[in-house]
């Protein structure tokens, strides 16, 4: 059993390595991983924030969150946004792209489990997202006056647990995506909603009362909050100990539900025979 598991792990690493190799051969796309969050979200958000500054300070933001570091607030949000994006686009949508291209079917002919292949995609997605996030945070520090404290290091375990939970979400989205004919809108919209409701772009507390409970069910809400609490000294949504607990429990739940859903989808595809079709 141990030998078999080691082989599955090696297979997952091989998938990640393959994805990273292919990604390296499209350098413009890699640059876009940094540029796109910058011009599509960070810059418009910063400029909107600048419109509310009083004497050069984000006092409005400070009144809600406890920090006036607008740039730090937003750039740290993109770190978690990157994790979400990796799950939706790299894991799920990327899988569908492979299926349509015809490169997924041969992997199902091997003894490696299909969910291990998806896990491998998650690993490469997280590496790319992690790299892009690191570059973005450096840009925030160097060019936009973000002041992220050393407390950031204390939040890294939260990021790791959030990454695990996003793998679970990725499995769930991958299951849906394999069954939908044109998943572009579905992936785009759910990625957006997930990130927005988690508080990546703004404090969860400004969401309407009906929507806020959903935010508390998302593991990424706690990850982004803990990140900001430790790095910027913001006011936590809940007692941090409670947030850590919620993060761990939700991560466990999402991984379990995600894998079950994916295995069901896999079975369905073997019965329906839709693997090679698009």
């Amino acid at each position: 059993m141990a030998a078999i598991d080691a082989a599955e792990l090696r297979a997952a690493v091989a998938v990640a390595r393959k994805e990273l190799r292919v990604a390296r051969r499209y350098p413009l796309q890699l640059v876009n991983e940094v540029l796109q969050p910058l011009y599509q979200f960070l810059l418009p958000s910063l400029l909107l924030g600048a419109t509310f500054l009083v004497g050069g300070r984000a006092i409005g933001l400070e009144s809600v969150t406890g920090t006036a570091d607008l740039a730090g607030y937003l750039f740290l949000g993109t770190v978690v946004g990157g994790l979400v994006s990796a799950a939706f686009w790299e894991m799920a949508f990327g899988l569908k792209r492979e299926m349509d291209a015809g490169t997924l079917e041969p992997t199902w002919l091997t003894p490696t489990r299909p969910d291990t292949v998806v896990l491998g995609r998650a690993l490469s997605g997280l590496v790319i997202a992690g790299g892009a996030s690191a570059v973005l945070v450096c840009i925030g520090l160097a060019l936009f006056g973000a002041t992220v404290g050393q407390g950031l290091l204390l939040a890294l375990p939260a990021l790791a647990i959030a990454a695990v939970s996003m793998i679970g979400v990725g499995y769930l989205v991958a299951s849906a995506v394999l069954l939908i004919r044109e998943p572009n809108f579905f992936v785009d919209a759910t990625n957006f909603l997930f990130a927005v409701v988690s508080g990546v772009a703004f404090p969860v507390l400004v969401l309407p009362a009906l929507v806020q409970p959903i935010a508390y069910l998302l593991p990424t809400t706690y990850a982004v909050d803990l990140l900001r609490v430790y790095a910027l000294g913001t006011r936590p949504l809940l007692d941090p100990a409670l947030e850590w607990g919620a993060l761990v429990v939700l991560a466990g739940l999402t991984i379990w539900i995600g894998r079950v859903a994916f295995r069901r989808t896999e079975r369905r595809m073997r019965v329906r025979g839709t693997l090679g079709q698009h």
Partner: protein
Amino acid sequence: MSLPSLAADVRAFGAAALKEWRLLRRYPTLFVGFLFWPIALPLAYVFQARGYAGDSAAALDAFAARSGTTEVAGFLFLGWAAYMWISMILWGPGTALRTEQVRGSLEALFMTPVSRLVILFGPVVSQVVWAIWMFGIVAATMALVFGVEIALASALRALVVIGVAVPALYGLGALFAAVVLRYGEVSALVQGVRGLFTVFCGMSFPIVVLPEWGRAVALALPPTYLIGDLRRVLLSGASLAELVPSLAILLGLGLLICGMAVVAFRRTERYARRGGSLAQY
């Protein structure tokens, strides 16, 4: 141009638009997207603005002073409506020719006697329906969800502003199409141009918050005038007379860009005829 050939071109326009419409209808998820994004995207920025205002009246006053209005939701919705319209133009007509080239049907198109203007601007026409739909959704959301009052007179003035912006924006789409046809690599170009507009045209902010050099760039871009004037007309009650200077610049830019598009397209066609790249991908 003789009357019969003009009539033929108009018919060809209609046929081009109908073809695009039929292709769009085959992808039903596009319909859902056209309902979702015009509401969801600006709404996210409205919530963000609420976060930035927080409990501070001073912060909200700062916004009003810089933007010229206290209607934060209206300000953001109008900005993003313009962004989405521009996106539609760049992704749609802007890439239509490239898509034809990739599909392999461009050569056939060029072999018809139809005027080149039809080929360039035909697909654009079908976008008009979507543009009307999208602006309608935005207006309805502003009025019904955020209580922004839109008087009929203001709405009509807004339509004038949109009309004046048409040559500039569709000219951009056509210019884009010609450049893309010549150089390929659609996606990077679209992202670049969209990025440029997002950062400089004041879609989510008033351009006064930009540094001086940024404002200079903004004032050279047509979307800046479109967004600014829409906001002045619908949120600050400005009259058309007050907008004449900026509308004049917008129209002037539009005519210039359309001219550039035609020149670029003619050059591209000549280059393609010489090199045989109409059929290439």
